[in-house]
């Protein structure tokens, strides 16, 4: 099809007539122009039908032409539910309708409309839930019928991104108010951002008629836009949606594939208002459109909205539309004015003087289909005799006027969404049908029609006023702010009751959800009188357009049905996002920090299977993943009988230095540290104020005033912050530094550990007498300055060697080389977990939970009894007064065929849950599963038995044994 039906300029301001674009809709090829959106290009080709409605599969066409309704939702190859009046046309674009069976023109689902009386409001709540389990069956059918677009499961991810931006003033909306506000704010010299969701700056100046001649809007737009473009400190973003208002003016602005995280010091919301539909029989027929949609079609895209038109109006704006239609060569059959005695402005008077057929005090009572059944064919007009009531003529029918387009101009709601997200309150005056928005945050101003100003002079003055408030607040100006402009009530464009019930229904209040007048009223009859309950019960306002065109009508209907005013009824909460956004906008370019030890690549080269613990990559084990258990067991055995090497760089490291270093640790950890000798390490257990175990490590005393304290990999950040927080209060003379990343560290463990270390360490006497268990030394290993700590986490002779971070790989190489003759092998954290479990050492966070006190995990020995104070001390004293509720025990599973219990498997006493497993693993050393579990105190004696509900519900018999499982005399680690 061709483009030759377009209106001549100045109509069609957005399209470039020299750039035709071919695209396909429902497998038919069409042509549009550069600058068109899908809906405008289809309209230019007389294709008005765009979609089928959600519930009854009724034919639907464009309603707003502003991307604000769900009627235009279409399917793009990788994008379901795209808005045809929002997506720019592009060459070769493949567009399909959605939510139909058969074809868009002949949707078999439309038969559902015949059964609408069997689909009452609250249908889902009433049906399908009995008998139990029914919903699962119905859901499949309903979801298929009600499904919107389809997801392309072969979608290739695209690059979406985020970026911060900073402005003094952000102006949202670039209509006459936004342009004026931006210009005024920019005079202060501040940095101003001007954002509009449309392709062109100017808002309603692009399409509405301000004067009889129809030139004023265009001229004003040209002047304002030129000024904005010439102002260096205004950044204008078009086709950009500000999708929410978050605290302190944090504005997510979506433009293309980027989410701009804009932080503005002041925000001026000039977001305008949204035209509302009239509610009457068949008001959803394609061809029944907002009058602003007709104006957008003509002025922006050069598309005639029809051949013969009827204008339904409740204000003077409808007369402007009628004039535009005449200018575009559309036959205007009649202007149906809901008002009995309209007060005309200059534009309306001019329109009347052109000889238009005007019927006052009348309503469109019903719209009728044309022979295709898919478009408007005529309207039925009746006299209004009372609010929402039309006279019934003797013939039984009102006046029928043939037309293919009906333009509705009956009022607006302010675009209140962002303002209400900022805490603003929307109120409504039932007499004037005017809205007001109050209680905006101090850093957020509103101006223009969203602030209920309609006359251009008022709008501009209001915008300037808002801009001055903003720049004054930023101390960029100190201007006198003019008086608030009084609302001029005669100018209210809102007609109070454009709602006309019909015996056959189908007067749609909410197009998205196919809700009719009776549905809303019945919801109140079912007892849901609160507007929030009506919404949830009826699903009104829950569709894709989020109540933009149903909130006001619903509030009016609920108010009338419950004998309240609209002001009392209110509207439902508008939550972010303002319009649908791609998940990719939130998900795109997220950061997942990764930490790697200096030995990382040596692990990879040695065939390690890496896992991420927090942000750290750590070797789980070395070898192929299908040999997992074999590899782990070999690593364990090698440590027990020979020597192994594990990377412990991830271990937290904290320097505690100064005259009060010992005093500080004495207060912070549970143990006593004042008398700890230099050259010794001491176990450091940390409890919080409630006496719950939260971390552990060792405190190494390198001098009177210097401790090096280790902490768990995952806990060190919190331990460090907590240390600082306490010392901000205590003010001890001590310096605390987190040096975790400054050190690489390994643990060399096993009976041959000393022999290996001795080969590369000549300045530390490694003899067991000279350097006993829990000793600490400074020296050098492989020529690298090192801190060497004799600890026994895995229960063998072992040394932790801590060296400067950048030397980690060199140390690793040196120890592997020195250990070659002993057949040293690296081991991973899986083997380490088994080794420590065999030794009965707990891992904080795995074997403890948010309630574990030291007594429960057999750590009473690590609590100093006579200290003046330590964090958690008083709480532990309190806990000591009461008997234990549970305690941790070691257990073995003797049945070789039983499924090995896993963490969190339940400990049972008959039917009663008495505890849970915290660690359990097959022990290559003991040749059976061993584990730790919380049990009740009377289950804790060595030799007593309990039941674990293991995988698959299998009951496994466990026997309590004395800890540790391995080397109870602890001779191995002290070799």
């Amino acid at each position, binding site marked *: 099809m061709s483009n030759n039906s377009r209106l001549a300029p100045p109509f069609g301001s957005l399209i470039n007539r020299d750039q035709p674009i071919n695209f396909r809709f429902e497998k038919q090829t069409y042509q549009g122009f550069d600058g068109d959106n899908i809906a405008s290009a289809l309209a230019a080709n007389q294709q008005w039908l765009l979609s089928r409605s959600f519930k009854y599969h009724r034919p639907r066409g464009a309603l707003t032409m502003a991307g604000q309704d769900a009627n235009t939702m279409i399917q793009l190859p990788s994008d379901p539910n795209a808005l045809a009046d929002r997506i720019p046309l592009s060459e070769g674009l493949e567009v399909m309708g959605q939510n139909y069976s058969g074809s868009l023109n002949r949707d078999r689902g439309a038969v559902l409309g015949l059964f609408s009386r069997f689909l009452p409001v609250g249908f889902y709540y009433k049906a399908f839930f009995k008998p139990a389990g029914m919903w699962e069956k119905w859901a499949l059918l309903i979801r298929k019928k009600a499904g919107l677009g389809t997801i392309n499961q072969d979608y290739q991810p695209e690059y979406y991104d985020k970026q911060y931006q900073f402005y003094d003033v952000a102006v949202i909306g670039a209509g006459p108010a936004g342009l004026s506000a931006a210009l005024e704010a920019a005079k202060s010299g501040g940095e101003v951002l001007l954002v509009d969701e449309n392709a062109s700056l100017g808002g309603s100046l692009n399409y509405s008629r301000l004067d009889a001649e129809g030139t004023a809007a265009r001229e004003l737009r040209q002047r304002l836009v030129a000024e904005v473009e010439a102002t260096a400190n205004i950044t204008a973003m078009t086709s950009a949606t500000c999708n929410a208002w978050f605290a302190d003016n944090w504005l997510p602005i979506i433009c293309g594939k980027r989410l701009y995280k804009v932080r503005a010091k002041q925000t001026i919301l000039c977001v305008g208002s949204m035209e509302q539909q009239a509610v009457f029989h068949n008001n959803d027929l394609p061809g029944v459109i907002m009058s602003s949609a007709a104006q957008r079609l003509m002025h922006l895209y050069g598309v005639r909205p029809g051949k013969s038109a009827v204008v339904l109006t409740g204000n003077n704006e409808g007369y402007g539309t009628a004039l535009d239609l005449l200018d575009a060569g559309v036959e205007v059959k009649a202007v149906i004015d809901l008002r009995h005695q309209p007060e005309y402005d200059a534009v309306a008077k001019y329109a009347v003087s052109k000889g238009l057929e005007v019927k006052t005090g009348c309503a469109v009572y019903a719209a009728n289909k044309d022979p295709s059944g898919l478009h408007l064919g005529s309207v039925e007009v009746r006299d209004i005799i009372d609010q929402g009531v039309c006279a019934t003529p003797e013939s039984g029918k009102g006046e029928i006027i043939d037309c293919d387009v009906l333009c509705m101009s009956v009022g607006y709601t302010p675009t209140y969404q962002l303002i209400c997200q900022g805490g603003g309150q929307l109120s409504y005056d039932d007499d004037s049908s005017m809205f007001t928005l109050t209680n905006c945050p101090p850093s957020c101003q509103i101006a223009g029609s969203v602030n209920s100003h309609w006359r251009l002079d008022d709008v501009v003055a209001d915008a300037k006023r808002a801009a001055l408030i903003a720049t004054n607040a930023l101390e960029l100006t100190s201007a006198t702010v003019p008086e608030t402009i009084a609302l001029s009530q005669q100018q209210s464009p809102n007609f109070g009751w454009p709602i006309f019930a019909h015996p056959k229904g189908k007067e749609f209040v909410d197009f998205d959800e196919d809700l009719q007048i009776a549905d809303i009223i019945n919801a109140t009859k079912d007892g849901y009188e609160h507007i929030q309950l009506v919404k949830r019960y009826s699903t009104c306002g829950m569709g894709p357009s989020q109540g933009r065109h149903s909130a006001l009508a619903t509030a009016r209907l609920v108010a009338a049905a419950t004998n309240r005013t609209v002001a009392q009824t209110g509207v439902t909460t508008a939550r972010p996002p303002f319009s649908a956004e791609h998940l990719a906008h939130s998900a795109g370019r997220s950061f997942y920090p990764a930490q790697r030890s200096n030995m990382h690549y040596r692990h990879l080269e040695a065939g390690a299977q890496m896992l991420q613990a927090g942000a750290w990559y750590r070797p789980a084990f070395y070898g192929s993943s299908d040999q997992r258990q074999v590899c782990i067991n070999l690593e364990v055995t090698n440590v027990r009988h020979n020597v192994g090497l594990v990377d412990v760089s991830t271990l937290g490291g904290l320097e505690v230095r100064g005259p009060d270093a010992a005093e500080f640790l004495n207060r912070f950890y549970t143990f006593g540290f004042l008398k700890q000798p230099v050259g010794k390490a001491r176990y450091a257990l940390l409890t919080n104020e409630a006496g719950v175990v939260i971390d552990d490590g060792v405190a190494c005393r390198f001098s009177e005033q210097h401790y090096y304290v280790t902490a768990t990999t995952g806990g060190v950040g919190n331990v460090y912050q907590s240390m600082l927080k306490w010392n901000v209060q205590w003010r001890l003379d001590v310096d605390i530094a987190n*040096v975790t990343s400054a050190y690489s560290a390994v643990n060399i463990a096993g009976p041959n550990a000393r022999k290996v270390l001795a080969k590369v360490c000549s300045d530390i006497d490694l003899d067991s007498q000279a350097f006993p268990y829990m000793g600490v030394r400074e020296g050098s290993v492989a020529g690298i300055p090192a801190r060497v700590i004799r600890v026994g986490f895995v229960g063998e002779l072992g040394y932790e060697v801590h060296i400067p971070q950048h030397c980690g790989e060199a140390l690793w190489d040196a120890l592997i080389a020195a250990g070659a003759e002993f057949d040293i092998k690296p081991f991973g954290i899986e083997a380490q977990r088994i080794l420590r479990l065999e030794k009965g050492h707990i891992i904080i966070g795995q074997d403890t939970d948010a309630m574990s006190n030291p007594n429960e995990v057999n750590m009473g020995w690590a609590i100093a009894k006579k200290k003046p104070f330590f964090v958690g001390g008083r709480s532990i004293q309190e806990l000591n007064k009461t008997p234990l509720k549970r305690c941790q025990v070691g257990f073995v599973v003797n049945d070789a065929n039983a499924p090995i219990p896993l963490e969190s498997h339940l400990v049972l006493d008959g039917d009663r849950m008495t505890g849970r497993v915290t660690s359990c693993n097959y022990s290559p050393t003991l040749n059976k599963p061993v584990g730790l579990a919380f049990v009740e105190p009377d289950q804790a004696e060595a030799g007593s038995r309990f039941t674990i509900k293991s995988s698959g519900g299998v009951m496994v018999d466990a026997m309590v044994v004395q800890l540790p499982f391995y080397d109870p005399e602890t001779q191995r680690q002290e070799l």
Partner: protein
Amino acid sequence: MSSTIASSALRRSQLYRRHIEMGAEFITLGDRVVVSHYGSNQEKQQAQHLGLADLSTLPRAGFKGPGTPDWALGLAMELPVQPNRATLQSDGTLVARLSQSELLLASNLDGLSQCIASATEAQLAESVYSLPRSDSHSWLVLCGSQAATTLAKVCGVDLRAHKFANGEIAQTSIAKINGVIVRNDLGETLSYCIFSDSSSVEFLWDSLLDAMAEFEGAAVGAQALRDCR
């Protein structure tokens, strides 16, 4: 020859393998080895537009504690008066004051810092504690006219040149990891030093290069930075 020195594990950056993959040539500055350039040795233009360099192997030092300012002044160090400001010493050493009582020192682009050497050798006064900044933190430099726009993709602080003066410091979150950003222009070229956790440097390097891609940024060697000064 220089590549051989760089491959000695004791002296190479955690990013060494990435540098090799990108075809880096190395250069010895002082007694440290850094990337001289990648492929082309004409990277000055790239650095002026948008470049990322790894200086992690160059000397750094840190000192902290209430005695630090007086001790440092006693060593003839020039200190910024306020926290979160940095000053260049006469030998080009960057002295960043992170709080009233904490200093971070980073060497000049010749890898020679008399200031760091003398501070490291000097006796620490009472209430002065040294920090292992060469090991705890990596040191990247993001430079060029597009540097601020790039940082806006990874950092929530307004670092644009007219809002964040030369010598200003932001201790903040960069690509979700904590770090210290110091604006330290190279001659006329906008430049930011980024000091952050050494174990995260590969992540940060990758994240920054990814963010730079749309602005045609690239890794540059120390030679380009030296040419810009």
